[in-house]
């Protein structure tokens, strides 16, 4: 399964919760659902792709004012897409 699909399913099911890229990477990796073992860099790249208007801005990020780290979350468009795609569950 594509890393982007797994990331979106992980975030959309948990919306509005937001996670660091490292946490998303770890959870997607542990789920064992990705076609290939994802690296942190690949996870970050997939998150940026999902956030791009080209893919419909399915996720977004906000910087935590305390630790200045980006946290990622599914947008309404992302939740809608996840629902339409069958509400895939990601556990890990």
């Amino acid at each position, binding site marked *: *399964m594509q890393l982007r699909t*797994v990331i979106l399913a992980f975030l959309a*099911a*948990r*919306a*509005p*919760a*937001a*996670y660091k890229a490292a*946490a998303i990477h770890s959870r997607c990796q*542990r*789920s*064992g*659902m990705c076609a290939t073992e994802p690296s942190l860099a690949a996870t970050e790249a997939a998150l940026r792709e999902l956030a791009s208007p080209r893919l419909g801005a399915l996720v977004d990020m*906000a*910087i*935590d*004012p305390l630790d200045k780290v980006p*946290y990622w*979350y599914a947008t309404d468009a992302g939740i809608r897409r996840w629902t339409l795609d*069958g*509400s*895939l*569950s*990601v*556990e*890990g």
Partner: protein
Amino acid sequence: MSTTPATRAYRSKIGRLPWAVRHELNERLRDGATGTDLLTWLNRHPAQRGKPRINSQNLSDWRTSGYADWLRDLERAHHIRTYAETAQHIATAAGGDPAAVGSRILAGRMLDMLEGAEAETAADFARAVASLRKGETDAQKLELENRKLTLAQQNLELEKQKFKRLTCETFLKWYQDKTAVEIAAGPGSNEDKIAALLAFMDHQQTL
């Protein structure tokens, strides 16, 4: 860690079909499609072209394997959504704007804890929060009803005051009328005087 449906390797004829086809099949099964209809649909599907025909035994096996897993997966997704809503409620109740990053981060951390907890404990917790939320909503509804009632009472009091004022104004107006005063001060019962005054007022209004 439990194996998730997406990682399960289904070696059956149906299990080897693309994920989207299996997903649609599962939805059709859930919606109560008959076996005959499903087999016709499956065997005519482009993804099935050139492959051995899927028979009723294959479909029956799928019901107890892939379809059962799919239903469990839906249930898991539902639980996670419930936990996510619980975490959001708590973050909001703590005074946070649900869209603000701080609330989102807090919701994520609570969700991690709930997902890490025993299923029953997490479910109990989610139920308790939902119940608390319901209590709060009920209290807010009651408060709103009380406000409406108070407003209605105030309106009624206002109407009474308006009526009294109007009565006084009318009294003063007619007290300045000589004929009206004569009727009021004249002989006869109150009933007679009221009838006479009403007739006089009607007469005055027609002039």
